[in-house]
């Protein structure tokens, strides 16, 4: 008989024993993660919507507090007390699934906070943080366009 039949069970056992367990830190998507000291999760925002820009090869998620979600859903004018955030990543291939793209390098975090205003329905405060370290951008050109874009997005349907 072929020696392979004696070897076979041994090889199977060996193969089973040799499964390597990847290091847990390697399973985190590091290049897409926000710096811990940015404390984004402490804001407790919910997901409003998710989108992709094929030309830029980026993907974005918009987050908001309950008030922001409710006004966006109702389509009513901006109110004081809304908090919104938009995070944008370069897309990368999902190494675990051929057929998917997932967040790659972190590009920007845009923050909007609204507060009471005497003239308008609310005063809008906008900040744009850029790059892996999320450094605050001082130049304000384009801010109005960016603010409008974020407010215009319909929330994704989540019954």
């Amino acid at each position, binding site marked *: *008989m*072929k020696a*392979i*039949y004696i070897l*076979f069970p041994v*090889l*199977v056992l060996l*193969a089973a024993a040799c*499964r*390597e*367990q*990847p290091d*847990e*830190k390697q*399973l*985190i*998507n590091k290049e*897409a*993660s*926000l710096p*811990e000291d940015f404390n*984004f*999760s402490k804001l407790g925002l*919910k*997901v409003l*919507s*998710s*989108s*992709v*820009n*094929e*030309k830029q090869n980026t*993907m974005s*998620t918009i*987050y908001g507090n309950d008030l922001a979600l409710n006004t966006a*859903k*109702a*389509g009513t004018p901006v109110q004081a007390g809304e908090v919104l955030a938009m995070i944008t990543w370069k*897309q990368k291939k*999902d190494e*675990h*699934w*051929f*057929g*998917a*793209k*997932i*967040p790659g390098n972190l590009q920007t975090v845009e923050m909007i906070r609204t507060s009471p205003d005497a003239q308008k329905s609310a005063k809008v405060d906008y900040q744009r943080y850029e790059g892996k370290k999320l450094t605050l951008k001082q130049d304000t050109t384009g801010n109005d366009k960016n603010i409008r874009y974020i407010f215009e*997005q*319909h929330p*994704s*349907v*989540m*019954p």
Partner: protein
Amino acid sequence: MSAVSQTPLKKIIISLVFVVLGCLLILQFINRPVIENPPVTGDLQAPQEVKAILKRACYDCHSNESNIRWYDKIAPAYWKVAEDVKKGREGLNFSVWSAMAKPEQAAKLWEAVNQIQAGAMPIKSYQIVHPGTKVSATDLLILRNYLSGTVTSKLADTSKTNALDIQYDKWAKGAEAPKTNLPVALNGIEFIPDYKNWQVVTTSDRFDNNSLRVVFGNDIAIKAIKKNHINPWPNGAIFAKVAWDRLKDANGNVKTGAFKQVEYMIKNDKKYASTAGWGFARFKTPKMLPYGKTRLFATECVNCHRPMKNNDFVFTMPVKH
């Protein structure tokens, strides 16, 4: 070594060999499973070079054209072969391909190529005994290129935008998923309405099936991510993955369309030991209709997630927020 000590040892070895051979011989007649080849009713249709690879590497276990070699027929190895063919055909059978709807066919093919890419298929022990069935890097490229060629990133059509408009209108007016009398999947898992209030684990853009997805995690999952304790995930961790249509406009801007489904994975290594330690459930459309025809529907989930077995069956690489 002296002749005196060699003789009894030799005798022992010879009799042992005979005992083993005798046992093997008896094994051939007990519990002998039958592998039949039922008729091929609707074989896979694919370009010649694609089909040739699958036929060579997969058809022994995933078709009704299993070629069982004489050396496969020797028990106990034969028992494993028979079991593999039975289970293999249950999950994927290229001989009854045309019985599946087109989107199902596409999904199975993407799954098949992903199982190869992850090194999960063909089964390792089978590859060792049948070296000719290995899928080379070039073969894999041929398969991947074929699949890439089948997806066309189309602009959103009116049927999809209409589907969204109808859903959105109802939802914006306050229509919600059931909060009492929760829908229940056949394995007993209830729909969890709170998923939308959880934190994000990742997002995903699926060009294989034209959908956008967000994976949410409950507090236990998010805490585990913070502490890098994610292999294995702690009991009580829950993922919820939401899928929407992928709506693209002429400028290449892609938005979420109609809500398609939410899927859960609930970690409990004891309660869900039979399904890899996770409770699987899927609820479709805003009505949250439970998916699955039998209680065993989760086998399908586990089988596709199996290439991730070294990562506790989880695909997602969490993004820390």
